[in-house]
């Protein structure tokens, strides 16, 4: 399609380790197909260790062994020119990084060098891509920091002198200061207070709309997804199990896992016990056969144990991977309310 900026087809990316005698294969991304259109915010939600970070590491072309792309294509289209980052060389990727494609990593300390001031990190990453004179550059940086409620003083600080939320905002500033066309953000607001979070999300939305850029936004926080994303994919054990316009996910989800996720959200003023999923997240080293959700699925049938449900397209841009997605099942059947796991 013409206005796709990113197309992912049949992507499989595994951690393959064979060191010091032990072999281990973690199938963190297993057969993912999706696309992101120009000018939209695409959300990815899913439980911890379901492979969200792994997936967007591939999108950001930031994979390092033992993580490896086993199969599939990841094609971007910047200025009409396609580039498959799954197979492109390091220098081709370097050309698009920061200017076209930027990546806000999970765990903000890792990009900030602990023994250098924040200022030098900005100089290293952003000065050349911005192509401004020195004075104009710092002016632009300071203006951008102000948008994130940061004082220019943070430039003089070492990372450990900033609070967690300030560091987080510094990395967001770093990734957005060059105004890239495609922003990949991994849990960018988890360390922020709700006031600043709201402003940062609004800022991301504003920047996105002003530039017409696309954003892939990963977080486990469903309330964030509810407020910023246009479309939302739910990931379970390395696979997309449901994908739909965000509104549909919150109002008319079909997959039992998604329905559970939406129902378990805590709200102020509500102290009723929340449903919790029985069992543990599956191990991606030995994922369950058939539908990966079947050991925890309250409505699993025999077929689920043997066959893998495909992600089927339904009306309204809605894709679901569940054999029982078409049945009208009442909520009580899907959500077993009880005290959460001990």
């Amino acid at each position, binding site marked *: 399609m013409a206005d796709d900026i990113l197309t992912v087809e049949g992507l499989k990316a595994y951690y393959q*380790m*064979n*060191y*010091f*005698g032990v072999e281990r294969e973690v199938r963190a991304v297993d057969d993912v197909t999706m696309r992101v259109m120009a000018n939209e915010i695409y959300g990815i939600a899913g439980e911890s260790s379901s492979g969200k970070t792994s997936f967007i590491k591939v999108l950001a072309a930031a994979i*390092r*062994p*033992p993580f490896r792309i086993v199969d599939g294509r990841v094609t971007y289209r910047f200025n009409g020119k396609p580039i498959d980052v799954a197979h492109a060389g390091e220098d081709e990727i370097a050309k698009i990084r920061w200017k076209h494609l930027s990546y806000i990593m999970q765990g903000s300390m890792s990009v900030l060098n602990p*023994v250098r001031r924040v200022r030098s990190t900005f100089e290293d990453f952003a000065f050349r891509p911005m192509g401004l004179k020195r004075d104009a550059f710092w002016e632009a940086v300071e203006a951008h920091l102000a948008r994130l409620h940061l004082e220019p003083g943070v430039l003089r600080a*070492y990372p450990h002198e900033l609070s967690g939320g300030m560091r987080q905002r510094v990395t967001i500033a770093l990734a957005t200061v060059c105004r890239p066309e495609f922003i990949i953000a991994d849990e960018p607001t988890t360390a922020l207070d709700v006031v600043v979070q709201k402003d940062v999300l609004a800022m991301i939305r504003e920047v996105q709309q002003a530039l017409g850029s696309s954003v892939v936004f990963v977080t486990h926080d469903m309330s964030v997804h509810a407020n910023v994303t246009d479309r939302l994919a739910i990931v379970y054990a390395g696979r997309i199990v449901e994908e739909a316009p965000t509104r549909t996910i919150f109002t008319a989800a079909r997959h039992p896992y998604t329905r559970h996720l939406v129902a378990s959200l805590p709200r102020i003023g509500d102290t009723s016990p929340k449903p919790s999923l029985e069992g543990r997240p599956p191990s991606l080293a030995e994922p369950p056969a058939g539908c990966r959700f079947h050991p925890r699925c309250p409505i699993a049938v025999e077929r689920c144990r043997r066959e893998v449900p495909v992600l089927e397209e339904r009306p309204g841009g809605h894709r679901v991977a569940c054999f029982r997605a078409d049945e009208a099942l009442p909520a009580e059947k899907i959500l077993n309310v009880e005290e959460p796991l001990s």
Partner: protein
Amino acid sequence: MFSVFRDLIRYNIEFTIGVVLVGVIVAFSLLSFASPVDPTAIYTTIPDMPPSAEFWFGTNSRGQDLFWQLTFAFRNTLFFGLTVAVLSRIISITVGLTAGYLGGWTDRTLMFFNDIFVAIPIFPILILFYFVLRNNLDMMKLALIMACFGWPFDARLIRSVALGLKHREFTRHAVFAGMSPARIMYEEHLPYVMPIVFSTAMANMIWSIGLEVTLAVLGFTNINVPTVGTALYWANNHSAMVVGVWWWIVIPVVLIVMTFLGLFLLAVSMNEYIDPRSRLRRMGA
């Protein structure tokens, strides 16, 4: 341990070359234990013979078989370099990590001494020791003295890394897991400075062996102990190049270059083993 070694050999060509080079030199120096001749005796054989089937490395003008002579020289020189490196590494790691981690007045005191040692010129001091100790100046004492001067720059480097590590959250976490400062320094922080330790150990060995050679060539060491330095001292003393006994100089120089190269490659590849991320990268590639 063995599997680590095997994996390094398999995945790391630098390591393999380093092992071969250093292995050859070490094996060569170990042959000294099987030597049929006494390295301090002179005129035990025909002087000035070029390399041949009988005398592989030729003989020198003092009537010594160079092959056996050099086995002793390398044994002493390697041992000397290693001693200086190990001793000075121990000092610089202890000082650097302690100053960096504990900070405060401990840091200020240690860095004060550090600066004093940086400021003292080493060459005149060594010559002074030579004149004071004369024939009592054996290799071990010389190594000790040089170790006392070989640490301050590296200690400062290590301290700067430790200073950064101190503020990392995992250090605080380790404190609350009940780890003592010594354990935090030697188990949590040491791996981060190991690459520095290895690469500076290399520089340090080159420095100490080079200094020993210089001192020996000038005659400021005990010239009766066979080392690479004293071998060159005697060669120079007998004007080896002028009278055409080139092998007396060329062979030890080639061997010492091999040593340096081998150790350098080892140090580089060891760094990779120490950092699991780069280790994994190499094995995956």
